[in-house]
């Protein structure tokens, strides 16, 4: 059940700070996620963004889709840039050079810029305890450069650098558990979210920026282009990811796990996998293997969430 107490469509800010005219693909789930996240962030924010889909589609010189202060530098350093912004603003306010106000610092990056090339900078920023929110927009591959695999690509998915072939089943490794890595840094707030559950997502983004210290929100961003599914199924696909237990929605607040949405029975993973071209080569054996793993992981998560 959605938590309509906090957000209903009419209470959602109408104005967008991530405006149309951006060059995201038709039906882009990541653009949807960014747009909604920006609604929750408001205008009193500074965003550091990694190289990736959202950066490219929103900033072809001399234009910008952003109505908030925004900086893109490189691919792997977003958390470090955000650390610098946070410290810079803090000192400027301390020394009275700018007025003291609650300016939120937010880092945005894709799965590549987070769990691969950007992992070190993120780990450092979390360890140092900077007051910022890091949002990972996870479309499960390096989409902007042409659908190459990342450590967030799920087991069995075909990408251009993990193609299915006579001697390959696609991605050979299981998706890296970034929220767990973030939680292992003992930061006060970690959450998973999906724009298919928009109010839950916006609430979590808001919680993230309101939490003092580092916060990490991992948002599943459906990519019709890379996942090979029809463009109108973006929102439905995100829902299926959650309903099959493949992408559970949960929070970790000060180390305590809380499952936000539980279902009396999870849908079979095939409901989700069979709708995407990137999984179409999978044999029944492999589908069963995936099902087994998802079931086990979900049970483990429930176990963690039910402790005391």
């Amino acid at each position, binding site marked *: 059940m959605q938590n309509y107490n906090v957000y209903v469509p009419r209470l959602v800010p109408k104005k967008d700070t991530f*405006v*149309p*005219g*951006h060059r995201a693909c038709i039906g*882009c789930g990541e*653009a949807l996620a960014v747009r909604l996240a920006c609604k929750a962030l408001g205008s009193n924010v500074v965003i550091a963004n990694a190289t990736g889909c959202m950066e490219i589609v929103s900033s072809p010189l*001399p234009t910008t*889709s952003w*109505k908030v202060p925004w900086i893109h530098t490189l691919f792997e350093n977003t958390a470090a840039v955000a650390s610098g912004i946070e410290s810079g603003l803090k000192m400027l306010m301390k020394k009275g050079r700018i007025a003291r106000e609650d300016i939120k610092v937010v880092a945005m990056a894709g799965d590549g810029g987070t769990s691969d090339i950007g992992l070190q900078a993120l780990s450092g920023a979390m360890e140092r305890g900077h007051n910022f929110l890091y949002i990972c927009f996870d479309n499960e591959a390096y989409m902007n450069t042409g659908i190459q695999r990342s450590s967030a690509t799920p087991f069995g998915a075909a990408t251009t650098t993990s193609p299915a072939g006579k001697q390959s089943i696609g991605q050979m490794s299981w998706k890296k558990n970034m929220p767990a890595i973030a939680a292992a840094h003992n930061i006060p707030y970690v959450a998973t979210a999906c724009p298919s559950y928009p109010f839950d997502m916006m609430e979590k983004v808001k919680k993230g920026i309101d939490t003092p210290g580092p916060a990490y929100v991992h948002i599943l961003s459906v990519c019709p282009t890379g996942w090979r599914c029809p463009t*109108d199924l973006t929102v439905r696909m995100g829902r299926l990811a959650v309903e099959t237990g493949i992408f559970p929605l949960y929070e970790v607040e000060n180390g305590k796990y809380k499952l936000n949405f539980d279902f009396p029975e999870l849908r079979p993973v095939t409901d989700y996998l069979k709708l995407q071209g990137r999984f179409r080569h999978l044999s029944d054996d492999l589908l069963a293997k995936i099902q087994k793993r998802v079931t086990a992981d979900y049970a483990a998560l429930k176990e963690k969430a039910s402790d005391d």
Partner: protein
Amino acid sequence: MTKPEGEYTWKDLEVGAIVTEPGNAAQYKTGDWRSQKPTYDFAKCIKCGLCQIYCPEGCVVQNDEGCFEADMFYCKGCGICARECPTRVITMVEEEE
């Protein structure tokens, strides 16, 4: 209103190629991209606003009657709104040439 990139001289660029006009990408017509477009049977519209929430472009606006419809300047024709509308107000049809 920014001029086409091809007309910028090096002097036209701001220091560090910084863009100082927030949101000026809004002048780019993404509506040219679509091959299908949404059509509406507003009699069924319950004004829930979900299509506005779910539009990746953020181009759905509320009209004078309080119903929601896409701005054709931006609409890329993804069909998410048609798919998600709880009362099936929206039908996607082929875009004419």
